[in-house]
């Protein structure tokens, strides 16, 4: 697969503070790439360097295998942090100005305004827009030049649930067109719902990167409720069991690799027990994220 973005040892220091510490990363065509990390972990600084507004202290990166130039940036649609527009210009005029800078055809403007459902407010001044409308205009501006890559930084920040759902729909629609999307967010749910790959930053260091589908692989946990006196003992004796934990009235069985819920079900059935509740716990990205961060924290503590 074609590499869209390749980062080698990218570093940014603000005085003594190391905001981004020697990051290596690759994004391939068609990926929806989520950048996760707590606030202040260096996501926006990294994106700022990729878009030429922050000068890197060290390291390099290339877009489409070429060293970065301003000409290349015209083919990338990006919104960093919050929407930025001229407040005294209307949405339409703001987009016209951007089309001039990006050398995009003006005929794209109605299309993108339609996509984000702002066509009926296009002649109002930007400063009169609500936050949700500002975010949507930002997405429209990023799509103005039919970009090959779309960079969105916290696109749902500060939106109400309906606004979040709307933006998510828009992102999914764009992704289904085969566009590469880089999405920075601290909303894990969002990343899990729309992303194909993700990376986690912590204090400027890359601590994990991989496909979202890998989340939840490995050992399984199965919730069991069955009304039998020796259920705890029987579960312990099952070949696939690593450990059994009682939570309220249900048992959570941690399974060895290669064992699944159906194996446990069959085992119980053979023992003459019918479970009333049997459920494989899905490992959420949130859990994985917290685990990875905790591990990184731990590693950092040991190192010091």
């Amino acid at each position, binding site marked *: 697969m074609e590499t869209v973005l390749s980062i080698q040892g990218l570093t940014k220091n603000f005085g003594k503070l190391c905001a981004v510490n020697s990051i290596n990363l690759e994004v391939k065509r068609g990926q929806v790439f989520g950048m996760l990390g707590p606030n202040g972990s260096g996501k926006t600084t990294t994106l*700022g360097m990729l*878009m*030429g*507004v*922050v*000068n890197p202290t060290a390291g390099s990166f290339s877009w489409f295998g070429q060293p970065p*130039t*301003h*000409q290349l*940036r*015209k083919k990338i649609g*990006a919104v*960093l942090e919050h929407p*930025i*527009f*001229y*407040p*005294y*210009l*209307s949405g339409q*005029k703001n987009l*016209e*100005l*951007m089309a*001039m*800078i*990006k*050398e995009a055809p003006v005929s794209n403007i109605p299309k993108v305004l339609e996509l984000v459902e702002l066509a009926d407010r296009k002649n109002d001044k930007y400063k009169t827009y609500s936050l949700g409308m500002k975010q949507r205009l930002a997405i429209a*501006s990023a799509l103005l030049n039919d970009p090959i890559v779309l960079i969105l930084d916290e696109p749902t920040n500060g939106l109400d649930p309906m606004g979040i759902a709307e933006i998510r729909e828009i992102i999914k629609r764009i992704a289904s067109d085969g566009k590469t999307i880089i999405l920075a967010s601290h909303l894990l749910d969002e990343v899990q719902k729309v992303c194909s790959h993700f990376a986690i930053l912590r204090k400027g260091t890359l601590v994990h990167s991989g496909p979202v589908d890998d989340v939840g692989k490995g050992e399984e946990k199965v919730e069991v409720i069955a009304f039998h006196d020796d259920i705890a003992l029987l579960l312990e004796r099952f070949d696939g069991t690593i450990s059994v934990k009682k939570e309220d009235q249900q048992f959570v069985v941690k399974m060895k690799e290669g064992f699944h819920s159906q194996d446990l079900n069959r085992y119980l059935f053979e023992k003459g027990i019918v479970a009333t509740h049997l459920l494989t716990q899905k490992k959420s990205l949130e859990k994985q994220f917290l685990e990875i961060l905790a591990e990184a924290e731990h590693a950092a503590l040991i190192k010091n």
Partner: protein
Amino acid sequence: MLHLLKIDLKKLIDYRTFWIICGLYFFTLILGAASGMEFLKWLGRTIEGFGQNININRIPLYHFPDIWQNLAWSAGLLKLGIAIMVVISITNEFTYRTIRQNVIDGLSREQFLISKMLTNLLLSAVSMVLVFLIAVVTGLIYSPVFDYPYGFTGIAFYPAYFLEVFAFLSFALMLGVLLQRSGLTIVLLLNSYLIELIIKENIDNYIPGVVPFFPLESIMNLVPLPFARYAFQEIRDYVTFGSIAIALVWTFLFNYFAYLKLKKSDI
């Protein structure tokens, strides 16, 4: 190049403050030109004996060729008005952070600066043409005769006035890029003459002859004060090569400093 100018004009053309300030500037220019004679009459009334020493009506304030330098110098005072507009235009980009979005969208930092410089050039050119037209009109109204080629003496002050405005706008642009805050920049812009005056007055004792090389001094020197000639004093009524050269060097430096600052800072 034209594309970059269009980009910057697009930002200004729907900006009401821009039109208000430009309108005020040109309105003051016309009003100032029209009221010169009235001002002299007022002087004659207020200052005892003013009219006796010099006959007001015999002062050829608006006659060709005096009008050229008189008006170019007077208009030079008002360049502060457009300079404030330039400061607002550049510092807005920092307060709204639109410079950041411009760069993200694919403008290089140099291109961004060039787009601002091109607007400065355009404003200077428009200003020069306007002052020239006012000079022609008032000259035709007041001059009893126009004798060619004597009537054109001093017309070289118009290109000099153009450089004067452009140099000062470059100075304003540089201050805006360095300070990034409109209030602070305007205050410093207004005070820069006083600051330079204090330095000039004190340094002359130590390093004689250095004064004409000061930035604002060099801008003022392009079109020297003409009115002393009506008090029978000697004035310089021609443009000197030296003053042009010094002002050109400063203009280059102002824009170059702005470029350096933009180049190395995170925006």
